[in-house]
């Protein structure tokens, strides 16, 4: 594939995001808003919309990269049960903050995408499950939905076509697992957010045991543009097998963190060193997690890679949710891994033993290495535990914890061994002079506390 021309790329999804009125319906309508939905509802049969989206090779932007049109096609055509469309706006993969921009700044783009998807699968009811912390996004969406109802864009007669579509915002309340589609559906039913075993897949038996499609916010936001500008246009952006505009969230040690809309397939180095202004404080690149904290880490030497589903998979990692976490050469990888593992242990729902226990064991063992109390055999012990977690649970949270753990342990094994060898003396040095501490920013009292805490894992 030739290099992607990211510099002359005209934004699609975030084209209007910086305009002060971008969330207003009138603004949206005056810039071609709801034309895609109108076209879908008036010129295409539902099956044609599915075929169109299949042909576009649009792949889900939530993490798994599953072909969107194919997912829709699993919904049974003739069933007496109602069908549901559920929007996954539970953005909570560490390093990911792209859907938030759409929710807060371009809500009608999302609502239009919802209408197109709802028409395609013939769902008259849609829910948008938004994480509880996103209060602003929730308010903006509520207002936009009200506007859409008032103007006949949502409700019993969408755009005058006779198609009914109701949309309800549903707030989560702080649980990463609710971003997993079956966990999300449990939560939406008013239960604990416990994932369910598949099959049956939600397309056959999902929300309230009815056929359900769960789509990510960014995935849906692409739909109006595919309808209005066509499949060929969409496929001309980036690799043929998973094209389109892509929101990449860059965080960590770069000069300019942020959400960047780029053509799929941009080189990771161009993203970091050109668009994001390179590594901060004049330091060197050490490692990148390219697709949210569940993705396997890339070393600096592995960063010459195209940011698309297949290229990253070929490198043994994944595009995931597009959360690019950049770490400079001062990063303590033991500490970074410990942080990641604490997250997964905290967020494990506890249903499956390999995940409930495995995430806890990993956190404890890496915690003791970090605190200078590790044993050399701990490293292989962790790798063993990872092996016992991957593919052995109801959902992929266990895999999501094991992937970064296994890859960081393998690729930065020397750092872990060094920490074990040097023990407590090393801990003391790192914890008081390491990269996360600005000189003079902490008092002697806190330094002691920090060492104390470290010694206790």
């Amino acid at each position, binding site marked *: 594939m030739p290099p992607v021309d990211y510099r002359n790329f005209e934004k699609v999804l975030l084209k209007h995001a910086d305009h002060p009125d971008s969330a207003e319906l009138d603004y949206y309508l005056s810039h071609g808003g709801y034309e895609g939905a109108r076209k879908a509802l008036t010129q295409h049969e539902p099956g044609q919309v599915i075929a169109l989206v299949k042909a576009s090779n649009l792949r889900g932007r939530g993490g798994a990269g599953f072909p969107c049109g194919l997912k829709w096609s699993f919904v049974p055509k003739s069933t007496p049960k109602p069908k549901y469309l559920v929007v996954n706006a539970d953005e909570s993969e560490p390093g990911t903050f792209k859907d938030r921009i759409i929710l807060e700044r371009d809500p009608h783009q999302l609502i239009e995408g919802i209408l197109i998807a709802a028409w395609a699968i013939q769902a008259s009811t849609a829910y948008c499950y938004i994480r*509880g912390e996103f209060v602003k996004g929730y308010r903006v969406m509520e207002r936009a939905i009200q506007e859409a109802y008032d103007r006949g864009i949502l409700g019993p007669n969408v755009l005058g076509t006779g198609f009914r579509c109701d949309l309800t915002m549903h707030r989560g309340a702080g*649980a990463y697992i609710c971003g997993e589609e079956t966990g999300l559906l449990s939560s939406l039913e*008013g239960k604990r957010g416990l994932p369910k075993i598949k099959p049956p897949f939600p397309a056959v038996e999902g929300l309230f045991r009815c056929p359900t499609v769960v789509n990510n916010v960014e995935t849906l936001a692409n739909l109006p543009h595919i309808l209005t500008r066509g499949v060929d246009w969409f496929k001309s952006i980036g690799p043929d097998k998973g094209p389109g505009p892509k929101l990449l969230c860059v965080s960590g040690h770069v000069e300019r963190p942020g959400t960047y809309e780029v053509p799929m397939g941009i080189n990771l180095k161009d993203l970091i060193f050109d668009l994001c202004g390179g590594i901060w404080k004049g330091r060197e690149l050490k490692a990148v997690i390219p697709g949210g904290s569940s993705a396997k880490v890339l070393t600096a030497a592995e960063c010459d890679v195209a940011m698309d589903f297949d290229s990253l998979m070929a490198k043994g990692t994944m595009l995931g949710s597009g959360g690019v976490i950049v770490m400079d050469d001062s990063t303590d990888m033991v500490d970074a891994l410990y*942080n990641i593992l604490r997250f997964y242990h905290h967020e494990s729902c506890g249903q499956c033993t390999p995940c409930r226990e495995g995430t806890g064991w990993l956190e404890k063992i890496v915690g003791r290495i970090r605190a200078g109390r590790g044993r050399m055999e701990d490293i292989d012990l962790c790798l063993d535990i990872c092996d016992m977690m991957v593919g052995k649970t109801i959902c992929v949270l266990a895999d999501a914890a094991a992937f970064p753990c296994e890859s960081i342990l393998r690729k930065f094994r020397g750092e872990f061994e060094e920490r074990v060898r040097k023990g407590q003396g090393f801990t003391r040095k790192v914890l008081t002079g390491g990269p996360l501490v600005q000189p003079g920013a902490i008092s002697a009292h806190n330094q002691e506390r920090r060492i104390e805490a470290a010694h206790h894992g």
Partner: protein
Amino acid sequence: MTQAEATERAGGAGPREFSEAAKRRIEWLYSRYPVREAALLPVLRLAEEEFGAIDGPAIECVAREMGISPGHVYGVFTFYTHYRREGDGKYVLQVCSTLPCALRGCRDVVHHLEERLGIGPGETTPDGRFTLKKVECLGSCDTAPVVQVNEDYHENLTLEKLDAILDALP
């Protein structure tokens, strides 16, 4: 509203009752789902607004209102971390502590708050004004470090900025 204020407004520590406006909202919520139970998370949000926090009497009130068992409500409530809990201060300071924030100094934010408030994570100041919580990813990693104060995100924090925010709280 602190919980003590809410308790007082609700007429002491006796059984809680939703306001008429809240009951209308609950009816509307029921109309949005094919089964009533699906409205549980939004009704818990309403209880949080009405009573200041979710405690035992609030759970009983929700259960009574929805016709489901208090045990079920409690089981669902305890699965989620973002509801205001019994004993939470007037301002809940939620410091994001996940990796992207850790790479950009969230620990300094936590330590600064510990020093300034004299409490550790999970604790509330004796005057009931502040609760300090370390939370997982808030989805605002490009503007790290981040603190959510009740509903509002405060981003790109420096210690000076943080002090100014706390000083300006009513």
